[in-house]
């Protein structure tokens, strides 16, 4: 049987037309699938925002959803492109990046971590690990402080990038706070880090001229967030959303540094602890008001962090005050700066006839002012935390007591230092105020020593009849020094003094306050 050429052509045309129709159908289905997937994803994101009870007002939800969508476009596109290969690729990236870290081979390590971020955008625990990984494990592999610092900034940048896709996420916000407080504010290299954070948050000409999309771009410094007067830039404190309908409690207004507004100006830059407090406060609000749960930390930890970070910030400011006071009068800085009492001794008596460096004195005054305000706020924070978590009461109360002492010490130091440059009545008023605050801090430190660094047996021997350690507050101030002197005499008879080291700190505060009172008179 033979086939007619015309029939063959007709058959071929039919087959081709059918194939073409089938292809168009497949392409149409694929395009529709992608569009539907996008719509479903958007819907899921909105549901998640609603489920986490973020502000539901018109402005808020649109903003959050928009940021989420835009921030995760890379992720979405990458996941779509890779399809089923995403899982194996992620496994490969995890194992190779971790082995590279162990081998100290950091070439293309950041690229792999970035790909992990893009491929696993929805896993908070991944981001918690990677931020910690970069800030600690990778930064410590660097030898130079500058490279350690930029690696930590890279960890912050990572968290920011995740945060762009997952706004108001308690896990990411807490990680940012931890990097600022634990790494930049409290590591062995903290002096270097703190000075850089302060300098870079102030108004300055950016050193990084490369664009963010440049291959060689890396975070080499923080962005300036303060203007020339030390006030926060409007871009970081302008709310981007209103309170959710029906919500009367605190809420995060969408601005970056919402909780630092009340402390401005910051003429000497921001402390890492201040920034950490701001993020911890955001996390606390998300937990208290919007019932978000941290993936790894307990509610108690999250709720207490703003108060604790305020305390650390206050101590940081107090140390800045001491440092500048010592430098202003040409006094030596402590050899071991990690020992707190070491900061108290050198400047107890300021050299006579020396006016001091006015710039340093001004900075010290600013630091003491801020220390007092922040310590006071820390007490307030602890007082709101205590009723929610009463199990930790005794620890919280001891911290509050030390904060009260810190506040008065800072105010006393402020007035005493300011009085040095004044004359006449103004000086007398400032000295009187300094004496008042020094007296208060000395008494408070006596009470701390008697309450927390003495056992019950000793308390029964030296406290007035009917008094015990919990009622120390009721003892008249003029009796405290005498009681403590008796306690010291008793302690001297003991074979073993388990509180000796702890007491040194508070005794140093008392000594400073008493000496300053004597000088002020």
């Amino acid at each position, binding site marked *: 049987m033979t086939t007619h050429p015309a029939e063959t052509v007709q058959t071929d045309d039919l087959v081709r037309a059918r194939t073409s129709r089938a292809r168009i159908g497949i392409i149409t289905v694929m395009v529709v699938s992608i569009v539907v997937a996008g719509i479903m994803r958007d819907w899921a994101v909105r549901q998640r925002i609603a489920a986490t009870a973020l502000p539901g007002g018109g402005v808020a939800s649109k903003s959050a959803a928009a940021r989420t969508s835009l921030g995760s476009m890379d992720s979405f596109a990458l996941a779509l492109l890779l399809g089923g290969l995403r899982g194996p690729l992620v496994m490969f990236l995890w194992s190779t990046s971790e082995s590279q870290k162990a081998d100290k081979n950091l070439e293309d390590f950041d690229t792999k971590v970035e790909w992990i971020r893009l491929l696993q955008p929805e896993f908070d625990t991944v981001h918690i690990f990677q931020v910690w990984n970069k800030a600690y*494990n990778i930064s410590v592999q660097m030898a130079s402080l500058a490279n350690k610092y930029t690696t930590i900034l890279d960890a912050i940048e990572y968290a920011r990038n995740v945060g762009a896709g997952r706004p108001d996420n308690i896990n990411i916000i807490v990680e940012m706070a931890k990097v600022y407080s634990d790494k930049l504010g409290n590591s062995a290299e903290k002096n270097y880090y703190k000075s850089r954070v302060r300098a870079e948050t102030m108004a300055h000409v950016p050193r990084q001229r490369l664009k963010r999309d440049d291959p*060689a771009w890396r975070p080499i410094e923080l962005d300036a967030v303060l203007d020339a007067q030390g006030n926060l830039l409007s871009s970081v404190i302008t709310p981007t959303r209103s309170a959710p309908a029906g919500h009367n409690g605190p809420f995060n207004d969408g601005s970056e540094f919402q909780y630092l507004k009340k402390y401005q100006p910051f003429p000497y830059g921001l402390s890492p602890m201040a920034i950490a407090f701001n993020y911890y406060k955001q996390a606390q609000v998300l937990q208290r008001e919007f019932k978000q749960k941290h993936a790894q930390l307990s509610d108690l930890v999250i709720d207490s962090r703003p108060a604790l970070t305020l305390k650390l910030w206050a101590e940081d400011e107090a140390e800045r005050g001491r440092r500048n006071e010592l430098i202003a009068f040409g006094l030596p800085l402590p050899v071991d700066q990690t020992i707190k009492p070491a900061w108290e001794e050198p400047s107890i008596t300021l050299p006579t006839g020396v006016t001091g460096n006015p710039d340093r004195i001004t900075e010290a005054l600013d630091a003491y002012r801020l220390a007092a305000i922040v310590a006071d706020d820390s007490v307030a924070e602890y007082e709101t935390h205590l009723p929610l978590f009463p199990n930790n009461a005794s620890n919280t109360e001891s911290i509050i007591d030390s904060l009260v002492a810190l506040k008065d010490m800072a105010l006393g130091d402020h007035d005493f230092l300011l009085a040095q440059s004044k004359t006449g009545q103004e000086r007398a008023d400032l000295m009187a105020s300094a004496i008042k605050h020094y007296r208060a801090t000395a008494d408070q430190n006596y009470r701390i020593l008697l309450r927390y660094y003495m056992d019950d047996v000793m308390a029964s021997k030296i406290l007035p009849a009917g008094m015990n350690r919990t009622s120390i507050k009721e003892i008249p101030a003029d009796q405290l020094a005498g009681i403590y002197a008796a306690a010291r005499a008793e302690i001297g008879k003991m074979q073993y003094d388990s509180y000796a080291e702890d007491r040194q700190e508070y005794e140093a505060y008392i000594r400073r306050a008493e000496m300053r009172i004597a000088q002020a008179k």
Partner: protein
Amino acid sequence: MFTQFVNLLAQSEGYDPSNGYFVRYIVAIVALLVAVVFGLWKDLPRFSITRTWAVSNVSFTEAIRKRVLWVTPLAIVAVIVVSQFQKPVDELDAIRQTTKFCLFATGMLVTLTAILLACTNLPKEIENRVIFTIVTKPTTRLEIIMGKVIGFARVSAAILLIMGVFTYSYLHLRSWTMQREIKQRLANDDGVEPGIRPTLEYYADGGLLSAKQFFTPVDLNFYSRIPQSDDAVKWTSGASEQSIAVPFEIPSDMLPADPEEAKQHPPLRLGFLIEVRRTSESATEDATAVPTTTPATRPVRIPYLPGMEPDAPPDARQPSIVVEIYDRDFFTIVTPQEINSGRPVDVQLGDRQLVVLDLPTAILPTLRKLAAPDRPARFHVNIRGAVPGYEYGVASDGIALGFANPNDPMGFSVPIPPAPAKADAQVAIFRGRPGTHGQQLRGDKPDVAPVAVYRFRNQQIDSTEGNVPVELRAYLERSGVDDADAEKLTDLHVEVVNRTDNTRSVPILLHPENGRTIYANLPAKAMAGGNFDLVFTVTSPGSWLTFTMNNLGLVQADRSFGLNLLKSLLILWLLTILVVTIAVFCSTFLSWPIAVVLTVLILLGHWGVVQLGDALTPGIGRQIVNDFRVQDAAQSEVLSRSVESLARALQAISSVLPDINQFAVTEDIERGVWIPGFAIYNALFVLVMFGLPLMLSAYVIFRYKEVAP
């Protein structure tokens, strides 16, 4: 007989002639003989290049008609997109990563295309009877098979050409852009940290795309001071920081096999001439200082006698040395506790003195285990100054070893000469502190800091003018220096000591960073004559810098990147020819999906077995029995033997499978290193030794396959 053959195959490794090289020859010759017997003798005389080319044209044209080349734009887009997601350390890292993406995409694309085209071609032609039109013509089956291989190789070449042009252009574009920006940054001082400025200047001057060839150092030694050319005695630091190792080799038949036999054997006697002098005052390291980088030090355990605790003042402690025995890779095989009853050997401050020490005979069976049937036991005798505050010096030929002469307390019955690894290497190896990434050099005050010395001999250097670039990728360990307000960089000085005229160049200051490459330009004039040392000194107390033979690159020449890329593409092309050959072979007797799977298995088989590594070493069966806690003796025996047999079979199979590691091209070109000529030779060797037998086998199978009525 079969078991012996399997064992023979299992023993063969790589392409080292001493390791079963001939097995592959045997396989190739067998394949050739089979092919000759089964028809090659008839078809070879009829072989026509023209007909083969015509067949290849058909395959090539068909592949082009299938729009195979359309996948290249997709791969190009993918590379560009993925390059945007990279987070490089710096500009050079960006180029390296982009190079890797380009070559990875090229390799994947060309390999997958080759597999799919070659695996599907024959089965589909047989299925849709297109093969009738070929086999019914006066074309031999040999011509068909070869034609198809050549045809698909041409397709691969086309893909490689497109991807190669893209890679070259894209990398040059990125490199040019980045180099321009670096120059701008340097000119404007934008965000340039002091530590990285020399690196950026190096990038700006030398460019980011390179293909460097390096001079090879003879050896690397660590001394307490820079030795002068005429110094017979060279000095090491004490406190177990540095040591002196001398390599020896003893044939296995000279060593007892077990402890009982060893008791009757004369002991090894070690004799050495040593001098001891006091160290100048060095910057003491704070023992309590917290490390500020992750530690990279392998713990070294040194015994101390009562009254010789490490914290005793140096003056109160007599100098002493500790003897250890290392294997060829410097892993401890006999600890100091097993030698001299665990006590350090006391030495006297002052002039040269002879120390003779008989090593216990119990170590001899341990040494014997280092030997193989065809090679002697190779080990190092290591002498380490144990007490700080002293330097310990020996002449390179001042250490001798032999079997003790029972009649002479100082003599040898059989002397054992040292066995340097290289003919021009020093007999005594002066070693630094062992670390996880290499040997470490201590930082100290400039006038007392110890040194690391790379020796270069008989190098051809144009010393008339200019500089010779040097690259160093070092690992740094620091402690107790970061609690300061300001940055304190680690200072590393490098200088050239010319051993022809004993002149020293002006030291260049560098600031190393962990895992990053640092660069410097050394004066070529200082290297005149080609016999010189590169001397490194760390002048930051508290810092330890790691050196290896491989982390230094003294640039001999910077060749053309384009040519280097061409070489890498050529190697990739050889790989695709191998892939095509395997795929065509598989497709002669399998349906195309199974052929694809088998092709991948053959390709990755050797690599996969290599990845299993230690899991296939003898004893794995016993280990599995222990892991699974099999109690029954019979069961455990069966399990153990089965696993061992399986491991041996896997090794045997993998030994005849192609080693695709020989086609690895990305590492060198990515690192800017000139691909050596032998890399092409190795790839060609694998192709010939594996591809040729397989093509002949494919021919034989296809010749007797009925594909047309």
